[in-house]
């Protein structure tokens, strides 16, 4: 009986940890992307430190695009995960990049 609860606690702990990393990390990253592209757009998109308007910055634009690309990639991985598990497969990160393996 107690063995079950050990397994349960371990599973719930893992879920909480992974969910915090993905569930809070991704929106935070997304917000960074929004911030970066606002910086890239310039003008009144972002309140400058001195209260005035700041000029558009190409770096912000590039940074914003890169961050959004990462977020989209992770979301697509999520879709891949849903599809893979539907077919009784799982995504493996054994080779760093994801591969579909049998469960």
């Amino acid at each position, binding site marked *: 009986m107690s063995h079950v609860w050990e397994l349960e606690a371990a599973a719930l702990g893992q879920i909480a940890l992974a969910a915090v990393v993905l569930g809070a990390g991704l929106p935070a990253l997304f917000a960074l992307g929004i*911030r970066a*592209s606002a910086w890239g757009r310039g003008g009144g998109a972002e309140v400058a430190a001195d209260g005035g308007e700041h000029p558009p910055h190409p770096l912000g634009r590039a940074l914003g695009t890169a961050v959004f690309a990462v977020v989209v990639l992770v979301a697509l991985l999520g879709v891949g995960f849903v599809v893979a598990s539907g077919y009784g497969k799982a995504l493996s990160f054994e080779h760093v990049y994801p591969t579909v393996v049998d469960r």
Partner: protein
Amino acid sequence: MTSATTILVLLVVVALAFDFTNGFHDTANAMATSIATGALRPKTAVLLSGVLNLVGAFLSVEVALTVTNAVVEIQNSDGSPVAGLSRDGGTALLVIVLAGLAGAIVWNLSTWLLSLPSSSTHALFGGLLGATVAGLGWGGVNWAGNGQEIDGLLPKVVVPALASPVIAILVAGLATWLVYRITSGVAARSTEDGFRWGQIGSASLVSLAHGTNDAQKTMGVITLGLIATGHWTDTETIPFWVKAACALAIALGTYLGGWRIIRTLGKGLVEIAPPQGLAAESSSAAVILVSSHLGLPLSTTHVTTGSVLGTGLGRPGATVRWRVAGRMVVAWVITIPAAALVGAALWWLAHALGGGLVGAVVVVAVLAAAAAAMYRRSRTAPVHADNVNDDWRDGPPADAPSRTTVPA
């Protein structure tokens, strides 16, 4: 047609009806926040969610034949009915499952009428539990599995249900806090588009995951009935028509939209702003996907409701209506026992009428009458796509609103 076959037809119809209620009960989980913030128009949101549920249901080819094994012992581990329930062409098993499904539908409709989100999976398990206890006694309950793996009512259903809102509140609260910290000082017009697409994307992921998880359960229940009556022998796959019918039923239900519940989750619990919508749905998608990946799938309803609550707590100054939250918690706690009571009562009713075809027909008639009564009751204060986002008012004046503002 033998009487067992006739009961089987009734069971299929009632199971699809349950799948349909499962769909409209859970539209809110994915779409309430996007509808409340205006990221999607109400009709567009339910259409998107319906289509994604349909796709999701077809994507899930994993066999969910042993779905009832989590809580009761009416099936062997290979999915076939246990010995003793197969007499009279499987009638005994059919009547248990039929009464259980009817109990689940009655509970789903009651909570919908009261505008409360509640887990359809819990309702299904509760109904089956009650009907099984009535039919087989307490020995028919799978309390805690064999002790070697996470299985049975307590480890697989009750404890995760207690833990999932806590995890979701934590994740969504943290996500909300981070999003507001990071985007503070950025002008609203520069964030609008970003948050809009972020919400749509994360909500779509939740819809897709819902289709793959939830439609499977009804598919498993129908296939169990087919096996019990000898219409299907393969315990590795399910018939295609079962999959197609369940996928359609859950998608249609989702498209119909449980507007009452959408309103509670999107407007009632927390006044949601676009960044909160993004944080809540991302958190829900993450918790749902991670938990099914780790083999302990958590209830979509418990997770999303927790996320919405968390997003209210994570934003300084946000309005959280604890009175609404309290009602939801009560609904969660009593879902399993309440559905079980209805399931048990209906099983006894069928049993008193001989436990065969007559009993089954009467159970379905009682279910239809209850459903019609609740539908009529709902028409006295209808909620639909056009008024789903109206300002929230806390009951009649005598019913003092209990609003809490989280200190900044």
